[in-house]
């Protein structure tokens, strides 16, 4: 996959599930950057309404999406008949990551595809060393 990945930002406008400070900080960083991006008010609404705009957002190669859980984002696009490219889409989860981590992911230029493929469970996650016990 070549070329700079596109960036999509979801404002999750119609619920308070994404921490406001994370959304605001990510949008501010995007606004202060020199990069082009697509910002949408709410991917859920677009999906529910089968908004054809999702098709153009999904098409066009590699993409990084600042939104929520990758599994949810994958199937929100699918619901609108606009499947994301499994090998070229990375979702940065603003519900669980801090703004700095999300922005690092958006601006680093490399796509680390992370949409689930198949029936993924927690046991499929990469094994990591346990954290050292604290006193």
């Amino acid at each position: 996959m070549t070329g700079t990945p596109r960036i999509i930002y979801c404002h999750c406008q119609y619920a308070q599930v994404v921490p406001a400070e994370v959304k605001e900080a990510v949008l501010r960083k995007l606004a202060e950057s020199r990069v082009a991006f697509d910002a949408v008010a709410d991917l859920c609404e677009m999906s529910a309404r089968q908004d054809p705009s999702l098709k153009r957002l999904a098409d066009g190669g590699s993409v990084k999406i600042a939104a929520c859980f990758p599994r949810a984002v994958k199937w929100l696009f699918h619901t609108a008949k606009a499947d994301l490219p499994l090998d070229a889409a990375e979702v940065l989860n603003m519900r669980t990551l801090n703004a700095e981590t999300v922005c690092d992911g958006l601006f680093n230029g490399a796509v680390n595809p992370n949409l689930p493929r198949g029936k993924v469970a927690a046991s499929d996650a990469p094994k990591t060393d346990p954290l050292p016990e604290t006193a």
Partner: protein
Amino acid sequence: MSLTAATTLRVVLYEGADAEPLDNADRFSALTALLEKGYSVTRAVADGRVAPHERGSLLVLGKFVGGGRLAAEGVSAGTTVRFQDITGFNTNRISEVVESTRAELGAVKHGEWKPWFPVIDYDRCTNCMQCLSFCLFGVYGVDEQNKIQAQSHDNCKTNCPACSRVCPEAAIMFPKYKAGPINGDVVQASDLGKEKMKVDISALLGGDVYSALRARSSQAKERFSKERDDKKALAERQKCLTKLAQSGDIPMEVLMSLPSPEEIQRRAEEAKAKAQAARALQPN
């Protein structure tokens, strides 16, 4: 309401050739205001990559240099493109211009409905039809291949994740829900174990949710007919349903908005029949 045939408006904040960049604070303020009103906004800069435009209307906002006439490139025929010089505009003025353009073009207005609806993870879904058989509000149906799908999103009851709780594969998500895996988080083995909880609830209520509702409503109805007091009747119904609401994480307002016991029975039978018919058509 599907937007497949509706006019949509995409706002472009243009900062490419022949336009001056906005101040950072102004750009952030304009983006925030437009997103909060439900618009999709593209920030376009020289050599930047954004999604292409295929259909619908475009409103291009920019601090255009020299007042020259701009032309849109790469948009399909039939696309309406408007340009608006925003030099000297504050955020409120930008919002007003966008809103008046939307109204003039007859483009859809966003944000009139909280997007609460089931999103199916087809990697996990086994097409068992439990959701179809469970939902009293006709949200689910099957497509031409007899595959389950959420069809009537508007019928879904806001903040009610009940159907996801009856899914044996944890395949139903509500992305705006507070907790995983219903919100789309990774499914843990223990989440599948929660199916036991559903069975327990079912047993607790004496069969299934619908029969429990019917039984409780019948009992309440008997009392209501004796008491003939609407306020007491409402209070009793609330009391009866509180436990069910707590057990199944179903908002009380959803339970309170359920139709009469007869109607519940009719809808439950209708939903079950639809599910049975769909299952009967599945290949063995």
